[in-house]
């Protein structure tokens, strides 16, 4: 009986994940193309997508590597892009923290923007779900999205140089990032943080080793948090 509900939760999760195929497919494809163009071998590109497994951070790292940034800067910046996943991890652990360690270890590997967003919405909507149902739902949501990331990267490598100049592929990465950022502008605090990040990054663009971006990111985080506090206090007053 319990197994039957888990099976159905797996498929509910699966259906919730399917629309994200449309995001992951072109994004992964693009990574394959851009990395190949930057001079990565097929093996390196595939390893990048399957070991790091984080689209935005991979593009950020790639951009800096093409600019010949020092390794420490590449790593610090890409990890900063991924820091939001610590928040996902904290918030998922409220719902999945009692799962066995090996399952949590597996969940962590596929803890990405899409699976997190889908699952946390579901858990909050249906707090009566039991732990095995939640786990089944999570892995269901992951199934259409995560393996596809690696497949799409492979397709991108294969397409490789077949993409003509007029397609202005250099600008595909900024467009993808902008499309991801725009829906994140949920509150005043998010907007102020984004504007801070832009202004400081542009002003400090001349700093060596792309340090300007790291400074901009730290400042923007602090200012975002402060604006959030300020809005909360105003709402209470």
């Amino acid at each position, binding site marked *: 009986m319990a197994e039957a509900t888990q099976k159905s939760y797996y498929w509910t999760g699966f259906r919730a994940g399917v629309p994200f195929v449309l995001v992951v497919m072109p994004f992964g494809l693009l990574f394959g193309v851009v990395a190949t163009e930057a001079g990565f071998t097929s093996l390196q590109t595939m390893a990048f997508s399957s070991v790091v497994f984080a689209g935005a951070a991979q593009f950020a790292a790639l951009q800096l*590597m093409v600019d010949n940034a020092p390794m420490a800067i*590449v790593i610090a910046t890409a990890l900063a892009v991924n*820091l939001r996943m610590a928040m996902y991890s*904290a918030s998922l652990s409220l719902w999945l*923290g009692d799962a066995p360690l090996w399952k949590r270890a597996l969940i962590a590997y596929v803890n990405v923007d899409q699976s997190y967003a889908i699952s946390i919405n579901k858990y909050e909507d249906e707090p009566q779900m039991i732990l095995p149902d939640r786990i089944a739902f999570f892995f269901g949501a992951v199934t259409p999205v995560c393996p596809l990331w690696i497949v799409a990267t492979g397709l991108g490598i294969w397409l490789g140089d077949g993409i003509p100049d007029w397609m202005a592929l250099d600008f595909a990465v*900024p467009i993808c990032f902008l*499309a991801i*950022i725009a829906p994140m502008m949920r509150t005043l605090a998010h907007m102020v943080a984004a504007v801070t990040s832009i202004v400081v990054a542009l002003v400090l663009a001349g700093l060596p080793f792309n340090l300007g971006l790291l400074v901009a990111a730290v400042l923007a985080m602090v200012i975002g948090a402060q604006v959030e506090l300020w809005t909360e206090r105003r709402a209470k007053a």
Partner: protein
Amino acid sequence: MSAGYIWAIILILGVGTYLIRFSFLGLIGGRDLPEWVLRHLRYTAVAVLPGLVAPLVLWPSATNGEIDPARLSAALVTFGVGLLTRNVIAAILAGGGTLFAMIAIMGAY
């Protein structure tokens, strides 16, 4: 780019990213996380990505750092459509469409 440089970055980023993802799920549990830490973590994505994109939009390498009307308008349309529709795909399509239309009109890339 040397192979060593690429492989080292892949491995270190892979391990680092996994540790970030595993962090609270694996070790402490989000219950114990102080509120001020969560408050900062909420803004990491909007703090890093806009600063990363801004110079690419204003000073694209394809035009040797000169402001380019095609790329600039494509960026604005992408962001505007994303803001209005909250739909990533719609934003990408609108931005890409603008870029190609502008390049076709201006006859240069």
